[in-house]
């Protein structure tokens, strides 16, 4: 099965974008690739959703940006989680586990 463009719930997309940056600062393309990677190729976030989300997160202070040289020696804008972004990531991870637990229980109860 090929990579699908999936219309994710916004909360889910936020969680994935934050999660993708948890290890190291990444630029927009890097974040997109990382999401594809950590979802095993199941999700491919469109740039039309990714960049607005990144800017919204930057406005909220969850991430901060910095221009630096990319892996092929070009300038790129790298995003990094701030402390409030890490806290947000933990909250969303907890919320998501909760949802999964509840939904799983609900589905299996039948």
């Amino acid at each position: 099965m090929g990579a699908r463009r999936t219309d994710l719930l916004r909360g889910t997309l936020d969680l994935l974008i934050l999660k993708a940056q948890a290890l190291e600062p990444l630029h927009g393309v890097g974040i997109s690739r990382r999401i594809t990677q950590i979802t095993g190729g199941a999700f491919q976030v469109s740039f039309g959703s990714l960049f607005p989300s990144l800017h919204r997160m930057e406005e909220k202070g969850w991430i901060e940006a910095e221009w630096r040289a990319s892996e092929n020696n070009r300038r790129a804008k790298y995003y990094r989680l701030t402390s409030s972004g890490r806290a947000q990531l933990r909250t969303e991870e907890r919320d998501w586990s909760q949802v999964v637990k509840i939904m799983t229980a609900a589905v299996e109860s039948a």
Partner: protein
Amino acid sequence: MPGRIASFFRNLLLKRTVDQALEDELQSAVELLTHEKMKQGLSHAEARRRALIELGGVEQVKEKVRAIRLGRFLETLAQDVRFGSRTMAKSPGFTTVAVLTLALGIGANTAIFSMVNALLLHPYNFRDLDRIVLVWQDQGSEAAFDDRNIAPADAADFFLRTNIFSSLATYRCRTDSLDSNTEVLPTDACEVSANFFGLLGISPALGRSFAESEQQLGRDAVAVASYSFWERQLGGDPSAIGKAVRLNGRTYTVIGIMPREFNFPVSIQLWIPLALPPEQQADRSQRSIQAIG
């Protein structure tokens, strides 16, 4: 909070810089994607084409980001307004003082500006206002006297013996007593020469102004009323033309009503003809009248 303020100013004041940064970011993304695809063996042109397709249109992405930024800005603004209202509600004393200070400040400024605007910037709507002057007479060491007053014979000479004025009107004003039916009212009245209204280019809203002949003693028992005088003393009645008013014990027939905005010199209620006896017309010692030309 400081981050939010910084972002507010970044968005507001440096809109172009923000747009430029966004443009740079997307161009850099295009390059990164192109590079990635070239590593897969595509030509530069083909790699770039596919990169642009994957990005989904630089302009479309920019629009979406801008919408986010604007949305955040409005949201922040709403939060600030709510925060501001709450803070003000919590300290009503401070709020009252602040509001009063602002109100007084704005009010005083408005009042002064209105005055300056009316007096200095748009004083009168006379015809050829830029060609109308008040004629003053410098009295040198006798400066204690009012320079605005000149002698009637001098005024006549200023007009007849120079080429300065195409027309020169004279007037003098005082507070007279108006006998209304029940009481005597102080009333600001001006005696004016017959060409006074014509020189200013203002015609009565109702009736007529003075004729040359009404400047002669004995034929001068006519009056032009101000709009407010007409409203208050004459009942605002169009048939007031021809009515009589008694001023200083003398009866004048109202022949005209001036437009509401006409007010020259200030706050005058009645204008009557300036009918000087010959000896006064020839007088150079008494600076008894004013001139405008």
